[in-house]
């Protein structure tokens, strides 16, 4: 058993391999080679994204529990959200992932100008997303859909939906009108926490993108070292994917009717 793994995978490759030419200026002193440094960075970023999955995972878990308990309230609250801004934002964000990927590609192929341009495009799309989000939040404030003391939610039954004033005895599956209004606060609490945390991640991403764009503009990256662009790309795609889950869970609970 103890000899099953003859070589140390991932440990530094044989010496002399990369020593034929001078060290790359971006090589840090504690790494032997650029490839070791790159692999460490990529692994570190993936581990970080794993922690992010669990971070959002707690919220998705709470969402799953409450949605299964208060499905009617979730459907009613979700129906009160305008779909169009969310849809536009979904397209905008997927577009920004494309421009991000193109900037990584441009960095890999030594195209400094294109790297900068695609990064700027990503920043613009990210900002558009946040702008639309601000509009949506303002709308919620205007309708008193923000949880707390001033929360109000008037449940308008959809056409064809049986109007139940009080829960009928024995019918635990259908929620009463009052109960729906009360428990929609849970939905909106989750809505604001989930989209708010997502927006915080977007803002952090945009700040990082500005720094990366500046570095790219200064010509710091080449085909051998462009780790910051690549890492930012991984992060950006992750934030994008979170939204791909948030959009249907929050906007589309019962739109099929």
């Amino acid at each position, binding site marked *: 058993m103890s000899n099953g793994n003859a070589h140390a995978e991932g440990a530094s490759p044989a010496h002399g391999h990369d020593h034929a030419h001078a060290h790359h200026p971006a090589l840090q002193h504690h790494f032997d080679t650029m490839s*070791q440094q790159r692999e460490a960075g990529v692994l570190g970023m993936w581990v970080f994204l794993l922690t992010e999955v669990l*971070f959002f995972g707690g919220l998705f878990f709470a969402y799953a529990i409450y949605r299964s308990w208060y499905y009617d309230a979730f459907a009613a609250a979700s129906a009160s959200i305008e779909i169009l801004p969310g849809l536009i934002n979904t397209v905008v964000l997927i577009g920004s992932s494309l421009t991000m990927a193109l900037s990584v590609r441009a960095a890999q192929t030594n195209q400094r100008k294109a790297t900068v341009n695609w990064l700027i495009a990503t920043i613009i799309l990210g900002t558009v997303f946040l702008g639309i989000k601000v509009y949506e939040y303002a709308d919620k404030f205007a309708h008193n859909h923000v949880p707390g003391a001033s929360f109000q939610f008037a449940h308008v039954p959809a056409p064809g939906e049986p109007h139940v004033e009080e829960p009928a005895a024995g019918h635990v599956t259908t929620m009463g009108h009052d109960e729906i209004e*009360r428990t929609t606060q849970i939905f909106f609490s989750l809505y604001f926490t989930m989209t708010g945390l997502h927006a915080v991640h977007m803002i952090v991403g945009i700040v990082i993108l500005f720094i990366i764009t500046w570095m790219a503009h200064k010509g710091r990256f080449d085909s051998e070292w462009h780790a910051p662009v690549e890492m930012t790309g991984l992060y950006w795609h992750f934030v994008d994917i979170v939204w791909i889950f948030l959009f249907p869970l929050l906007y589309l609970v019962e739109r099929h009717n």
Partner: protein
Amino acid sequence: METPVYPAHNYLSNGHTLRSWLLTKDHKRIAVLYLISISAFFFLGGLFAVGIRLELTTPQGDLFQPDTYNKFFTLHGVIMVFLFLIPSVPAVLGNFLIPPMIGAKDLAFPRINLLSWYLYIIGGLFTLFAIVAGGVDTGWTFYTPYSATSSSSNVAPVALGVFIAGFSSILTGLNFIVTIHRMRAPGLHWFKLPLFVWAHYATSLIQVLGTPVIAITIVMLFVERAFGFGIFDPQRGGDPVLFQHLFWFYSHPAVYIMILPALGVISELVSTFSRKRIFGYSFVAFSSLAIAVFGFIVWAHHMFVAGISVYAAMVFSFLSFSVAIPSAVKVFNWAATMYRGSISFEAPMLYVYGFFGLFLIGGLTGLFLATLGTDIHLHDTYFVVAHFHYIMVGGAIMGYLGGLHFWWPKIFGRMYSEFWSRIAAILVFVGFNLTFFPQFLLGYLGMPRRYHMYPDEFQVLNVLSSAGASILGLGYLIPVIYFAWSLKYGEVAGNNPWGASGLEWRTQSPPLTENFTEVPTDIPEAYEYTPKVVREAKLV
């Protein structure tokens, strides 16, 4: 035998300004920064324990108001768990030793390593602010709805402090995982790694997978408290038990964040001071991973009386027993390692002997609490308090102190007083048992935890416990004196004062900033204590 000379060039001599410490990227200096800061928090948390034990010497509540007492046990718990135990072994010993143990110059991300120390300090400052501002009274578990709506104490700053310190823990774990995967010296494959490194790898997995969950739980608590959101509020349909699930999904595995690195330390010490290769290397290595995995599927045993379904409780009860298997694998393998070994009684090894006794009692009483029927009797009594102190103090701190005594000569290049270190180790063991064994009896007899008054018939056992605590406190204070003394007056240790076999003992003490003058290439098997090696090592 030549007298070893204190090396003129080492990581400590590489810069003496405050800046050279506060902006260092050297994992060894960061480990020393952690050592100083966690020791400060340890004694601060200890002060709150002194208050608790003083109050409990008499049945009446004559020292504190009930609210003050609540704040004392809350702050004792918060500081000891989040600011001492969780960083203790990994951030000090792991930080210092993993790179030299694997023949690397540093951790994979030195700047992130420094960042994690700063995050730890910021988290600690939030907690200190809360103490100055009047304390917090929810218990270290922050249960809702009390923490979310009722408590008027400083829940938010403490919760934020825990949140920030959590990211320090995540980044340390992330750094270790990448370092162990990517920075090993050529030829050092996984099954030649010291078990200390395996234990830290398993710990890091928990830190990376568990900590984000408590982070998001604190976010939910925070938005509820700060903005009036209603995620756990029963009046709006929220479920306080959901908070408990999310809290324990991290906080049970967090126990293994505290104990696993200590188990790694014990493996090193047992092998070194028995002069034998560890028995069943791969079993001990994989048992660390097994504990990490099992640790994630037992959390609801903290909630047997919280109204969870009886079927869920049965499953969690059964799964909780399964943690005993890898734990027992370790203990049996250590015993087998010592069998017919050449055992000695230096201070680090005294902590190991103490650890065996305390970890055994702590582990076996855990089975009482994993059993549904007995847990209903023992839940929220002093039995629970005694049980987790046997694991977290008896296990984790004994491991930490044993490791600190073992690697102190490597870290600072000098030896401490052999006599006083043995006295302190014995005081800690005696004091610990006198403090916490009576609490098993108190809990069994029905004394609930977290009250500042109790019926008269419990006084004898409580006085015994407080008396033990004063011995324990003395046992923790004496090392501070002889460690400080050793820094200047201690005998020069030399590269390898214990005749140990790990890679870290091949370099000078204290090591150079780069750890090795050249990357080690002839990597031996782990724990190569053949008679020839032992003989030669003793000549150093």
